[in-house]
């Protein structure tokens, strides 16, 4: 079996979530690589969107910014941020990828600040950007993040972006479109889902060589595990070849 890095494992695991004929809003980096990989291998009709206005580009290389020229290179449409966000609000967008500074068991994300006083944050982060919008409006939110207790916390300092909020039904009660919400978390340890009944994280599969104990150690809240617990299929030779040769030949992402 081919050797691969954790980043390559994460990108392949993320790519496999994406079906043909669907739409996905991505950022730069790993999510974009995942979408490009899926597009090249089994989802030629996967339509990639960028929140700044690019729709369906033929990506010549990995973008540096979600609004740079690459994001609408030979695109179907180069529009506005509203064009994208309103597509999401109309229910036309199936998937979105987000990162997470902090995340809790219901998938609520903090990318705004560390500390208890909003007026004087201990550490200020960028804030929502489009994350709150995309997680509110797209059907399924996938988070890609390294897993550790600094990130996987019992309570996020600030709910920048809605997961299932306080739990099942809370999104709808707040007015968010029904049927949306966190779908998977792809980490360096495994793939985590949210069972419908609990809307609370549960590990679905562990990457090769990872134990449940490692996951527990690197999670700041009691993690659930699906039974039976699967092993994430490692990247195939074909996945790795396309990822390395076509998607990210300059190793912008997989070289990290």
């Amino acid at each position: 079996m081919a050797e691969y890095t954790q980043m390559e494992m994460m990108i392949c695991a993320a790519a496999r979530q994406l079906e043909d004929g669907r739409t996905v809003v991505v950022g730069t980096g790993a999510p974009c690589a995942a979408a490009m990989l899926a597009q090249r291998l089994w989802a030629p009709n996967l339509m990639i969107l960028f929140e700044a206005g690019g729709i369906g580009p033929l990506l010549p290389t990995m973008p540096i910014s979600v609004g740079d020229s690459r994001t609408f290179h030979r695109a179907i449409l180069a529009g506005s941020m509203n064009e994208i966000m309103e597509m999401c609000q109309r229910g036309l967008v199936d998937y979105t990828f987000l990162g997470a500074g902090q995340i809790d068991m219901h998938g609520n994300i903090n990318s705004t600040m560390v500390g208890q006083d909003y007026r004087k944050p201990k550490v200020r982060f960028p804030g929502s950007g489009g994350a709150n919008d995309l997680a509110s409006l797209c059907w399924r939110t996938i988070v890609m993040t390294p897993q550790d207790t600094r990130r996987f916390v019992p309570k996020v300092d600030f709910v920048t972006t809605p997961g299932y909020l306080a739990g099942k039904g809370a999104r709808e009660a707040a007015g968010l479109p029904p049927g949306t919400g966190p779908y998977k978390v792809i980490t360096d340890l495994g793939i985590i889902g949210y069972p419908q009944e609990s809307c609370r994280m549960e590990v679905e599969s562990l990457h090769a060589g990872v134990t449940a104990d490692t996951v527990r150690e690197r999670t700041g809240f009691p993690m659930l595990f699906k039974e039976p617990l699967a092993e994430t299929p490692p990247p195939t030779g074909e996945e790795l070849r396309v990822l390395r040769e076509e998607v990210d030949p300059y190793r912008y992402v997989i070289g990290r």
Partner: protein
Amino acid sequence: MSEPAGEGKLFSFPDVDGLRRLHREKARNMVSKLMSAREAIDRFVHDGDYLGVGGFGTNRIPTALLHEVVRQRKKKLGFAGHTSTHDFQILVGGDCLDRVDCAYVVGLEARGLSANARRAFESGRIEATEWSNAALAWRYKAAAMGLPFLPARVMLGTDTYRYSAAKTIACPFTGETLLALPALAPDVALIHVHRCDEFGNAQIDGITVADLDLARAAKRVILSTEYLVPNDQIRERPHCTAIPYFLVDGVVVQRYGGYPGNMPYEYFSDEEHLKEWLKVEQDPGELEAFLQKYLYGLPDFQSYLELKGGEERMLQLRAEELLENRREGV
């Protein structure tokens, strides 16, 4: 059903009737508005104004105009931070801002965080109100439509809402809870475009981000442009006009005016220089020297371009933009 209003400060009240009176007074004569960046910023940006900036952080940003805001040491400005990255870095570098509507600030996307911008928030020097990117874009849209507010379905249930100045309402038809976003009409919009005529009729190639609405929302608009074209060229394809002249107060012709950002179809971003900027921000003293060298110590933006390698460097970035030095991936 409706939640308590957001606790954040509303920096710009949606006084649509006041805005209507202001728009009524604005001259609509088709006269030349050509001027230097210095004159444009001096005439149209005042201490305490609320700024909106076009483009997307490092893409099609009006760098030449932003440098001039810093060079003229404008202070106590308000700012709409929707994916503001290098634009924000410049204004915070000049200590120009005292209040910010935050959707995306202090970061440069995958490039990392601006240490200086973070210090400005962490010290409490800048007052912040939270929003999302779409929320700020729709707030411009509301003002562009002449409405005091627009409904939306984002931010609900989160702390982003709690620390915003949004409200919730019940839909008069469906009863469902909706976000209510107050219109945002900046005092001044700074927007960089591909080409425009002397009157301010402008075309933009590629994504427009929120700029069509920003130009229509703002009380005053300053354009910087890569190319000056005759009015005839605008009239050849009137459906390509992004911003009509009567919204525009000043037109500044500045080739490479979005450097070190990316200008679609013209030049790619100068990632080295952006990295340098992030690096010097680690140390306030270094940043001061850096700003002295590249900004305060220079008479104008053209001198900055010269210092950064002039036409030769710009041609490299142009080749990169046009993918001339790498194979096509597709």
